[in-house]
């Protein structure tokens, strides 16, 4: 078989040294011709055709970060030269993880496989290893919970580590979920309880991964367990301590819409359902035990231990599941929308809390009002269930998303939750006007399109055109934008603006990636092993990704992915197959394997 190898680049920054790969390719058997096309080459099909004729090439291998971009040109040329058009093979560096300068060997092996006409993943099969049946799941949002439950239900030990004081993640903050509008709590809380008293799940809340050593199949992970200062087992959440505690600070769980005490429980259904002490806020802790300590005296079960220290725990696990989820894009960065400056400009999450039946306003949609704060003795914008209801609400899509100045990617969930917001506004405040500013309405999922139609029918005004700015004119907010489909400029006075804020990888993702040696993509999410074929595996042996931390996803997709990870972990434990590191394979190894595979294929056909 006479093979021609062409190397080209489509991304500006060529990370792999194409010439080095070219030189390697020249010495491969069957390779008759090697050409370096360079960056975004202008291709002339006729020239290529003639080249193919001259060199009597039977197979073309296109190598580069995304060689697919050139394929049609070469397929055409090969066909024109009366070759077999199926014989154009791709050697995609990006697809198979040759994504930086150091991965030159990987790039070579990818080319080697393509020259022999065998798929790289089939050749570069991670080696089998004995896998410790215990699994570590990092992050206890819906993804982590789902994965943990499924693995534990299969009778395997799971350690579930969560940074915040309770499991549940962002979903626990939501009221309703699109497009069915069923309540998030009804779905999530049973799962949370199940996790809470599953004999196969050991839960570490308020804890973080400090260090990872060991390797595939046998990792040793050190967990930093921050002191809870309350005995979670003994505590019966009787609320006495909270009532007595004099310190009150903003509640993280309620997105700073309300206050909580220094000893508190994030929300009534929290798991573990026990109180905890905020060491930054607690007077006893900050004063080194000199002041306050009121809760100590009052606790009827003496389960408060303010002196408790942080500790570390070492865990031996075979598999690690990354389910670290996401954070909201910081809406302050888009100054023209006035978040942080204008009191009634809310982020999506703040609105979620506000509409939540068990949230700070008991589900009432109200405006913030100026109040004199007793402690700080200064006027403050506060939110009260009795607050005035907005007459007009604007929802702005793509805040921080699809924007070269912030995040170029689409956050995937905003369109739908914005439509949900519109519904909630119209439902709870029928007299209020609701305007929705979007660029493309991305209602792609099962039942989403129908949902969108329903919302439109409910009388929400959807405006195709992104809001340019939110200003104030004589005390009232005005959103300025272009209504493109009606070809006019609009300036709409509103009382409340909800920013459909995009999502970004959770803080600490970078550190975790470094610890686990898992690559991240250009947007900061964890990179999967193969975009199409292995969306839940990673380069690293026995390390899996589930949910948002791999890229924006809605709940159904997240749950599905979480279960998929469980499958991977379980069969990893059962068979040990594919639990090794991909990078552990040497170039010669891959070459030999590829040749063997080629031979066996020829034999079988």
């Amino acid at each position, binding site marked *: 078989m006479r093979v021609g190898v062409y190397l080209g680049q489509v991304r500006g920054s060529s990370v792999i040294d194409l010439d080095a790969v070219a030189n390697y390719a020249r010495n491969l058997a069957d390779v008759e011709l090697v050409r370096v096309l360079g960056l975004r080459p202008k291709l002339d099909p006729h020239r290529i055709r003639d080249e193919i004729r001259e060199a009597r090439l039977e197979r073309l291998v296109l190598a580069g970060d995304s060689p697919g971009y050139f*394929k049609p040109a070469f397929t055409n040329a090969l066909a024109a030269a009366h070759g077999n*058009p199926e014989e154009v093979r791709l050697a995609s560096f990006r697809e198979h993880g040759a994504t930086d300068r150091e991965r030159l060997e990987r790039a070579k092996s990818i080319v080697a496989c393509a020259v022999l006409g065998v798929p790289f993943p089939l050749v570069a099969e991670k080696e089998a290893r004995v896998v410790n049946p215990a699994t570590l799941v990092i992050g206890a949002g819906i993804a982590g919970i789902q994965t943990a439950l499924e693995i534990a*239900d299969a009778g395997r030990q799971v350690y579930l580590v969560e940074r915040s004081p309770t499991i549940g993640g962002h979903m626990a903050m939501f009221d309703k*979920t699109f497009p069915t509008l069923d309540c998030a709590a009804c779905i999530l809380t049973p799962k949370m309880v199940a996790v809470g008293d599953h004999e196969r799940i050991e839960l570490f809340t308020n804890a973080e991964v400090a260090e990872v050593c060991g390797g595939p199949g046998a990792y040793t992970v050190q967990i930093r367990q921050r002191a809870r200062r309350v005995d979670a087992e003994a505590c019966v959440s009787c609320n006495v301590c909270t009532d007595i505690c004099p310190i009150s600070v903003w509640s993280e769980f309620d997105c700073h819409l309300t206050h909580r005490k220094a000893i508190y429980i994030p929300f009534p259904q929290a798991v573990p359902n026990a109180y905890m002490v905020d060491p930054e806020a607690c007077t006893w802790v900050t004063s080194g035990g000199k002041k306050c300590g009121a809760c100590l005296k009052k606790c009827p079960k003496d389960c408060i231990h303010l002196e408790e220290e942080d500790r570390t725990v070492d865990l031996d696990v075979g598999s690690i599941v990354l389910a670290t989820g996401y954070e909201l894009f910081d809406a302050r960065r888009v100054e023209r929308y006035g978040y942080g400056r204008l009191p009634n400009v809310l982020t999506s999450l703040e609105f979620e809390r506000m509409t939540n039946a068990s949230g700070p306003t008991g589900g009432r949609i109200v405006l913030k009002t100026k109040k004199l704060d007793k402690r700080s003795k200064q006027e403050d914008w506060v939110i009260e269930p009795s607050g005035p209801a907005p007459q007009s609400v604007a929802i702005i899509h793509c805040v921080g998303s699809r924007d070269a100045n912030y995040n170029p*990617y689409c956050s995937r969930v905003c369109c739908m939750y914005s439509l949900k917001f519109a519904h909630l506004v119209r439902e709870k405040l029928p007299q209020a006007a609701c305007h929705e500013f979007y660029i493309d309405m*991305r209602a792609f999922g099962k039942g989403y399109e129908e949902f969108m139609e329903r919302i439109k029918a409910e009388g929400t005004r959807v405006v195709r055109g992104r809001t340019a700015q939110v200003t104030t004119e004589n005390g009232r907010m005005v959103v300025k934008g272009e209504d493109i489909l009606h070809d006019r400029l609009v300036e709409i006075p509103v009382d409340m603006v909800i920013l459909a804020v995009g999502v970004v990888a959770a803080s600490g993702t970078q550190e975790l990636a470094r610890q686990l040696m898992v690559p991240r993509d250009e947007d900061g999410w964890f990179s999967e092993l193969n*975009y199409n074929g292995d*969306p839940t595996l990673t380069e690293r042996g026995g390390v899996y990704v589930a949910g948002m931390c791999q890229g924006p996803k809605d709940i159904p997709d997240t749950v599905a992915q979480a*279960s998929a990870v469980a499958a991977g972990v379980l069969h990893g434990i059962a*068979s040990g197959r594919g639990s090794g590191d991909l990078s552990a394979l040497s170039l010669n190894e891959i070459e030999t394997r590829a040749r063997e595979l080629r031979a066996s294929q020829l034999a079988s056909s």
Partner: protein
Amino acid sequence: MAEPKIGVFICSCGTNISHVVDTEAVREQALVLPGVETARTYRYMCSNPGQEMIGAAVREHGLDRVVVAACSPRMHERTFRGACRAAGLNPYLFEMANIREQCSWVHADRPAATLKATALTRAAVFRVARNEPLDGLTAEMCPTTLVLGGGIAGLTAALELAEGGYPVVLVERSDRLGGNLARVDLTAPYLDSARDLLTERITRVRRHHNITVMLHSQLKALSGFVGNFTATVQTADGEAPRTIAFRLGNVVVATGYREFDASRITHYGWGKLPNVVTSFEFERMLRSGRIETKDGRPPRYAAIIHCVGSRSREFHGYCSRVCCMTALKYAQEIKSAVPDCYVSDLYIDMHAFGKGCEDFYKRGSEAKTLFLMYGKNEHPVIRRAPPGDDCEMLIEVDEQLSGERIEIPADLVVLMVGMEAREDSAEVAHLVNISQDKDGWFIESHPKLDPVATTTEGIYIAGTCAAPKDIPDTVAQARAAAGRILARIARGRIEIDGVFAEVHEERCSGCRICNELCPYSAIEFDSEKRRSHVIAAACKACGACAAACPSGAVKARHFTSEQVLAQVEGLLS
């Protein structure tokens, strides 16, 4: 039945209950109730000493029933059932009265709250007297799994299960593996090779000893219940057609989709105009390296039309999810094959939501693709260009972003045909007894709780047979289905909670009302005996059947009419 010996234990939960409810009064009231041997109060019933107190009392008084008046059963029922079991009592001979969440925490008026607590406790006592000892069942779980469909979803699910160490039978209707993906050249948004992906999967499947592949085959019948199905498959694979039957524990339905028939939209002229092709026809052109018009010229102008059959009133209301990215892929591919061809792309909303997709959209723009937006529910009209024009066809449409009525030159038009449920989906749904939505897609048991399971235990769905999906989501879902099954098989036998419905055959009139009613089809009709009976393994104990049975033959264990009515009596006397 002998007079029951009931012990009542009232928790004051620190002061959570006792600060409003006079627990002592409740205790005294309880003591005088029929069958009550002993009644006690304690600070924390849930704590270890509290639970030991129950055990001690059982032994001391030979109690055979226990009532705990404390918090919500949703909080601690499990705990106290454990305590009873430990004390040698059947856990179902236990009742809880919720006097915290639903009494002390919501009422301030002490006498009224105490009265209510007493009533709740009384209700529990009356009920527990009629409780019956129940035992859970276990059924065996056959480790074999049947996978319907040899597309990327089926292949992936099969591999996952096989590598988990369990046998799989992969049944494919057509004569080859790969499904619709086998017709695709490159995948969006990274233009990776679809063929490499399939070759890899198929090779693995072919050489895996745990997988039996049956081509040219289809499922004819499926009987039994989770863990214990029997499938009848008719196959023409290899020698003469034959039917075979085998046992299996679970089923993965991965039957995929079919493309929308473009000829249904007459003004696109597909089938009449030579150079109007569907996306799949265009894929063939790509693979054969012939991006050209029927008369063999490279196109000067190409046009791509989105949402053919999708997002429209008269055809399918839903979005087919993958076409936008595929369309962008075609734009890139045309530019690559015919660099000086002008590509127009007619879309409604650009659904570039996946990883790397927005960037791919931008690359489309950078490649100078002309994006034209048309309105939902209005269709571009394609007609032949007048002779002497520099193009074959003209597409006329109201362009939304300019507000102009425009005509677009085109030598080649690609129709992005949407996905729709396969013609045989109803048949499959009936065979494995799952339901379809109005569009014919299979319905998951819950879109968020459980997106791969169905309301029928042991039947799972994966891939585009549930709804349109791209490859990564399909693969993930297939693995998810496999994961659920792996977990169940790993547990070996299936435990069935003691709480389920049962039919008293002598009372059953065979009216079959309950058969229709059961959302889990857990009630079978025995046509010989003309009686219905409940498959305990499949029953989820909602009790709908019990409520509906005209002859009162269905008994919802642990929620019998007697028990509930006893509770009513207890509350009100």
